[in-house]
């Protein structure tokens, strides 16, 4: 019998904000020591009150707009109660009754054609801390408590692991390019709800939930393992399926049921009286919309139209930093396709040779635009442009000053170039003679002589044209 997989996802994404969701602690990701980034509020001391970080609302709304959601104009927070040492207040502030975004839709490009995935809701919540175990003791680290998260809940619309991975990849690109989240290792975590049914059936099978996975590889493996387990149970009666929460073990590649105690808790949700309902009025929503970066799909389309290849587009979308550098440089009046080539070919090549990562790329859009314009205006040639880029990336040089200091901009005016071409013609009568007698190679020698005189700074096409013109 053929079976169909039915999968729904809950994805937690850490937002890129300067401070935590309800206090002013910042920089938890840079904290070296446990509890370096805590205050009385996020460590659960009495007398402290949560104060809403507005940026979290704006990023959550932006994410909702990207996923074509309805934005709630009235949104509230609830408390979810459970005891665990990494949860300092013994409750997590989250959204149950009035989430910030609902009813969204994303379209995936899959090998089976386009697939629509409905988004049920997006809600805001705070992260918990973590436990550090050592010998017989356990310690709590609250650096992560109250770090802002959004949870994106889909309808059970996925039919394969491939679709799930495509969706997650899309979220990742979208959120990185939109400044929602850096989506670094562990900053995106998934709970997968999965069931299996005979193809053509409209009833759902027994559903299990696999909790808290962060690598795409693990998610894919877990789905495949779990699907097979369900199918074996249905087909061969290997075991009785029960609705339960499971965890995926990376080492064995299998899923295991979690203890009931951890899963069947009554979280006693209720409204948080310390946080007033948030009202998103027209003015605020419009401001968020105006600040929203172009959606990835639209962006990809723009790039494609400008002639950038699909492979290059994927490279650009995978890294927010180079994406921004491209957009900002284009905004300064540079050609889109040229700029992409400068970034993806020249800059990346230089970085690779220097053994540096993209994170270490320290080139401003202004400086990059200066180089690109000097080349396109014929002030320096492409080769010299590359030299300038190397100096910028390796030594943080300023392009204009570097050109001046190294004489690259000396031959900027065409009369200087013309003078050199004339001198070369006068000084190489034999070569001129040969060329006039039909020896095409002789032109190459004359051209080489010009380039030598110009120290590689002149525009090769201009020089060639000048030579041909003068030798006629």
């Amino acid at each position, binding site marked *: 019998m053929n079976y169909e997989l039915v999968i729904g996802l809950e994805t937690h994404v850490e937002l890129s904000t300067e401070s935590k969701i309800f206090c002013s602690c910042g920089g938890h990701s840079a904290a070296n020591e446990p509890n370096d980034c805590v205050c*009385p509020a996020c*460590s*659960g*001391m*009495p*007398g*402290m*009150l*949560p*104060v*809403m970080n507005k940026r979290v609302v704006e990023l959550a709304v932006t994410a909702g707009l990207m996923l074509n959601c309805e934005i709630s104009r009235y949104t509230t927070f609830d*408390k979810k*109660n459970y*005891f665990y*040492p990494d949860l*300092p*207040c*013994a*409750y997590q502030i989250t959204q149950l009754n009035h989430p910030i975004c609902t009813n969204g839709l994303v379209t995936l490009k899959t090998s089976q054609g386009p697939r629509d995935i409905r988004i049920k809701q997006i809600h805001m919540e705070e992260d918990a801390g973590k436990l550090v175990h050592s010998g017989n003791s*356990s310690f*709590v680290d609250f650096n992560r408590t109250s770090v802002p998260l959004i949870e994106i809940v889909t309808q059970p619309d996925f039919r394969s692991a491939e679709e799930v991975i495509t969706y997650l990849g899309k979220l990742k690109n979208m959120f990185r390019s939109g400044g929602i989240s850096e989506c670094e290792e562990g900053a995106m975590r998934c709970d997968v709800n999965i069931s299996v049914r005979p193809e053509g059936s409209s009833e759902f099978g027994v559903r299990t939930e696999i909790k808290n996975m962060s690598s795409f590889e693990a998610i894919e493996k877990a789905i495949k393992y779990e699907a097979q387990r369900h199918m074996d149970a249905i087909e061969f009666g290997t075991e009785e399926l029960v609705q339960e929460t499971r965890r995926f073990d990376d080492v064995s590649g299998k899923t295991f049921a979690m203890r009931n105690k951890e899963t069947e808790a*009554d979280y*006693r*949700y*209720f*409204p*948080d*009286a*310390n*946080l*007033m309902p948030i009202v998103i009025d027209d003015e605020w929503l419009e401001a968020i919309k105006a600040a929203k970066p172009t959606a990835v799909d639209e962006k990809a389309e723009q790039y494609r139209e400008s002639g950038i290849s699909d492979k290059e587009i994927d490279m650009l979308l995978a890294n927010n930093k180079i994406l921004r550098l491209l957009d900002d440089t284009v905004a300064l009046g540079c050609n889109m396709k040229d700029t992409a080539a400068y970034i993806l070919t020249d800059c990346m090549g230089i970085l690779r040779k220097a053994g540096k990562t993209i994170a270490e790329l320290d080139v401003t859009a202004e400086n990059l635009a200066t180089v690109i314009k000097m080349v396109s205006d014929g002030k320096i040639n492409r080769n010299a442009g590359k030299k300038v880029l190397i100096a910028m990336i390796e030594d943080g040089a300023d392009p204009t000053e570097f050109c001046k200091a190294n004489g690259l901009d000396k031959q900027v005016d065409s009369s200087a170039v013309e003078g050199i071409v004339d001198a070369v013609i006068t000084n190489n009568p034999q070569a001129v003679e040969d060329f006039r007698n039909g020896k095409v190679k002789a032109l190459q020698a004359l051209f080489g002589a010009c380039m030598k005189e110009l120290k590689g700074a002149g525009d090769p096409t201009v020089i060639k044209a000048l030579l041909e013109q003068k030798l006629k």
Partner: protein
Amino acid sequence: MNEYITKICETGNIAVDDTILVKDAAATAGSRILEGFKPLFSAEAVTRLHEKGYTVSGKTATGEFGLDLVGEFSYYAPQEGTLKGAAAELVANGEVKAALGVDMNGATRRAAALSGVDFLKPTYGTVSRYGVISCAASGEQLGVYAKNADGVKEIMEVIAGHDDKDGTSLPAESYDYSIADVKGKKVCIVKELLEKADDETKAKVNAFAETLKANGVTVETVSCDIFDLANTAWQILMCAETCNNVSRYDGVKYGHRAEKYRNIDELYVNSRTEGFNFLTKTVILYGSDVLSKNRYKDCYDKSLRVRRVVSEKMAEIFASFDAVLTPVCSKTSYESYDMNEAFIKVFEESVFTCVPNLIGSPALVTSGVQLMGKNFSESTLLSLADVVERMGE
């Protein structure tokens, strides 16, 4: 009785209840669970008083988390004999000019009535709750004990106004506490509430009404039967929120930790069993129950709806009257009793005090009676109190 849990300054003029934080002074909310806890900062109200040159004399005893009648069940200062509120007594004796307390379930107002001083439970959101050891966040307010209306006014003018550190703080920078002429004001007495009090208390209310009349205030008796309903709703919300807010006291981070435990569950259970008193445990159990999946809709959710109904009903009354005059409690004095009876006793007494907590409106205790008003009517309440206080001088 031992009023101070911690003495801070011999010449201080403001006492601060143990439910409010003063930087570096032990803050326990009367509970063993917070034994040894010293806050890193002061409550906003305390900071504002400091800035205006007031000094804190010390931390005064309260009942555990302010859940009892007047402060009888403090772990640090248990009371025998006739019950009194510590901060209210210090104000009554003239040892301090004023005191700060947290009004959550009427304990501060009852204490003021028993000691014959004033206590204002201000409009919700007008005084920052930053630095209040919170239990029932949706209805608790930091308030002021003082000898008379003038004293309350003086302190309120310092501590009220917007605070960024409290998400429930209203935007206004200041409010009106001026004492003005009361001629022509209209006050009502709620028949159903008055009937719940003993004769001595009734006599106090009636005497207050007579003095008001003598000063040109109209006093009428009206009928309104929402108070029992309001009380049940508030007890449900109060228990639920308190249960949740004291969950953080688990023996892991600060405060009392049991000596014996074999794992994290035992650490929680043993620390909390030893740390909380019977009344707090009762509140935790009720609160946990009303929030549970099966009960939420019929208890917590319904109480939120009752809150709206009571708010509308009170708005109707305040459309015709400037204030409602009521008893503060059913009796004029209490003797110590067994803690097993506390939950029911407090429940019965809070029928007089619950409405301002439930709907966020202000209430002023003065001359052993209570004046309730609509939001931001503190000036009217203080003016009515003042005219009676001056007659008694």
